């Protein structure tokens, strides 16, 4: 009997069913590709899992994936938005998957994450990376999954895998770009804050030095009301001396940078602001300056301090100069005062030889007249030499005249010596320089000048050693010696002693110094006033006998000007001993 129904061929039917399934799978694969091609968002995952759920006739579907931004996402079929899982949740989920291969079927199982748990699960990773990159879960409540379902899902997972991997790579790249953009944005913000909030003026200008930007501190420094008053203007308009800016530009064009460049800012209120600038040039590909970037600091306060310091130094130097000049005048006045004081004595010293010179002159005149008379008597107007004259008388006369000449010579020598010593004593040191000075010679000339003050009250004992010439201001040293000698003589005179006193003068060379001691056997200086004798205007003499400046000036001359020492002590056996030490080479050069 022949079956009227179309012949049933199980093989054919199976083949047709497989072909139909293959066609459907192909369509699903195309659809899945299409979904991811048209939708870049994570919602594509939701659409894709819904497509798979329908194809496999599942009750629920989940597509898990780790995207390129390392976010763990769960796209559940039928929901609006993917769920973001924590890394811990993701790890727990993958640990719960009973996956021994890329795909698996398994029975009821609850997952750590709150998802609907059906009776039968079908799972597949996205090969070849395994479950780490993501997986698909499909669930059925009513019946177990068929044998064909697992390879079918795996096959579709294979199809999706490169798409998801590509998307992941793209997301990773975008993530990096976003990250870089975020860093850039942060840096931009930081730099902007640095630029705007800097306490120093920060500015940029173009190749023609037209200001292109400046910060708030720049406005404060320049005194301008707003950025519009500066931006777009030549920088040189901000500088008091525009040629300073020209020099700045020459430097930066040549070297590419300028360090510590000072200039004065021109402000609308005419208040000078001293500025210190550091700048560098940004060049283009051709090496031309594209931009100048500079930082300018207000150093007015520092300059003000320096100016005060400079002014103090200059004022001090001027005061010192005036003081020096005053001291020179004072020393000279004191010297003239001493000479004035000693003038009577000096006149007396000159007067003695002058007296007998006058007497000799009178005598010579007398002799001359006597000879003239005899001559006229002898020749008796004949005009010829007399044949015989009083030979003995003439010889006596000549002998007496020789004596008068010899005595007169001595007188002249004494007067000339006094004048020379006076001149030597009162030398003015006009050059202001330290010159060669013979200390022993200075002592002799000073003694000569003071001799009339000394000779009636004291003997002078000199023990002058051999000395090298000193570098000194001789006139000043002579002044010191005179002060001490006159003080000594006056001190001895004041004792009203029956006999003369003794003044001892010693000199000696000692290494690079010379020592001068002037001692007397007078009353000495009381301990109570010894510390004051070098003070200006201190004197124990009666009015008119001293200015009180002698020892003060002496101390200044020896200690301050010649860098020597001047000490006073009790002389052995009573009296006063002044010791002067002077450097042979003079004072060291001034700094």
């Amino acid at each position, binding site marked *: 009997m022949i079956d009227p129904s179309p012949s049933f061929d199980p093989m054919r039917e199976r083949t047709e069913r497989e072909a139909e399934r293959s066609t459907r799978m192909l369509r699903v694969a195309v659809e899945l590709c299409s979904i991811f091609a048209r939708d870049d968002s994570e919602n594509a995952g939701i659409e894709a899992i819904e497509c798979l759920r329908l194809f496999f006739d599942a009750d629920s579907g989940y597509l898990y994936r780790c995207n390129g931004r390392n976010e763990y996402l769960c796209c559940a079929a039928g929901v609006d938005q993917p769920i973001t899982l924590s890394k811990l949740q993701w790890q727990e989920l993958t640990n719960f998957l009973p996956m021994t291969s890329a795909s698996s079927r398994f029975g009821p199982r609850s997952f750590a994450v709150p998802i609907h748990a059906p009776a039968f699960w079908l799972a597949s990773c996205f090969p070849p990376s395994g479950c780490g990159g993501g997986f698909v879960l499909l669930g059925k409540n009513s019946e177990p999954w068929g044998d064909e379902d697992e390879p079918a899902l795996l096959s579709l997972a294979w199809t999706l895998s490169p798409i998801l991997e590509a998307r992941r790579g793209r997301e990773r790249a975008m993530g990096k770009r976003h990250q870089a953009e975020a860093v850039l944005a942060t840096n931009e913000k930081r730099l902007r804050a640095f630029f705007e909030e800097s306490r120093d003026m920060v500015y940029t200008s173009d190749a023609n030095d037209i200001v292109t930007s400046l910060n708030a501190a720049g406005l404060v420094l320049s005194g301008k009301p707003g950025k519009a008053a500066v931006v777009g203007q030549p920088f040189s308009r901000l500088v008091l001396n525009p040629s300073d800016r020209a*020099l700045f530009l020459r430097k930066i064009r040549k070297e590419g940078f300028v360090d510590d460049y000072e200039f*004065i800012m021109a402000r609308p209120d005419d208040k*000078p602001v001293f500025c210190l600038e550091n700048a560098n040039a940004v060049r283009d590909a051709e090496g031309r300056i594209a931009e100048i970037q500079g930082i300018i600091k207000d150093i007015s306060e520092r300059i003000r301090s320096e100016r005060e310091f400079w*002014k103090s*130094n200059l004022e*001090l130097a001027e005061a010192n*100069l005036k003081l020096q000049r005053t001291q020179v005048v004072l020393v000279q006045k004191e010297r003239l005062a001493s000479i004035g004081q000693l003038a009577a004595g000096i006149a007396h010293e000159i007067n003695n030889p002058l007296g007998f010179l006058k007497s000799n002159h009178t005598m010579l005149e007398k002799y001359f007249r006597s000879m003239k008379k005899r001559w006229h008597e002898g020749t008796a107007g004949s005009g010829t030499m007399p044949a015989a004259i009083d030979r003995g008388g003439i010889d006596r006369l000549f002998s007496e005249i020789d004596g008068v000449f010899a005595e007169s010579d001595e007188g002249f020598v004494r007067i000339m010596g006094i004048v020379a010593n006076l001149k030597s004593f009162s030398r003015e040191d006009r050059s202001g320089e330290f010159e060669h000075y013979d200390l022993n010679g200075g002592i002799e000339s000073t003694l000569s000048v003071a001799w009339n003050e000394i000779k009636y009250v004291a003997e002078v004992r000199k023990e002058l050693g051999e000395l090298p010439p000193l570098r000194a201001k001789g006139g000043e040293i002579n002044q010191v010696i005179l002060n001490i000698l006159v003080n000594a003589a006056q001190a001895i005179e004041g004792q009203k002693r029956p006999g003369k006193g003794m003044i001892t003068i010693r000199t000696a060379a000692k290494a690079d110094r010379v020592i001068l001691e002037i001692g007397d056997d007078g009353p000495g200086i009381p301990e109570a006033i010894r510390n004051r004798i070098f003070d200006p205007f201190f004197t124990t003499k009666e009015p008119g006998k001293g200015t009180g400046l002698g020892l003060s000036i002496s101390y200044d001359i020896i200690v301050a000007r010649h860098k020597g020492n001047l000490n006073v002590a009790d002389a052995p056996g009573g009296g006063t001993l002044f010791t002067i030490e002077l450097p042979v080479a003079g004072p060291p050069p*001034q700094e």
Partner: protein
Amino acid sequence: MIRITQIVDRFSALHPETPASVAEERGRVVLGLSGSFDIKLAGEVEGLLASVIDQLEAGRSLVVDLAAVYYVSSTGIGALVTSLVRAQRRNVPFLVRNMTKKVRSVFDILGLLHFFSKDESDD
């Protein structure tokens, strides 16, 4: 004077872009400076002036010609102030001449101009 010329020549050899010159004029030493007295050069100029001042005997004038000095910073001013003080200590009259308007204005703003004696031959 020979020693001063040597000092100035040595300075000029070391700083060919900002040379100095020296001349004798009516018994005074005239030192011509040039260039920009910035932080780099000011110390060197101060050293030059100190060496020249130290060579001069007391009372002999030093005239500093600033005609070719086109920029002066605070360190440059400091160098000139220090030199003036040094000269005064050594009793060397220190005069300036041919100060440019710009350099003069800096000294003027700082209130230091009157400390510097102007050379009589300065127009």
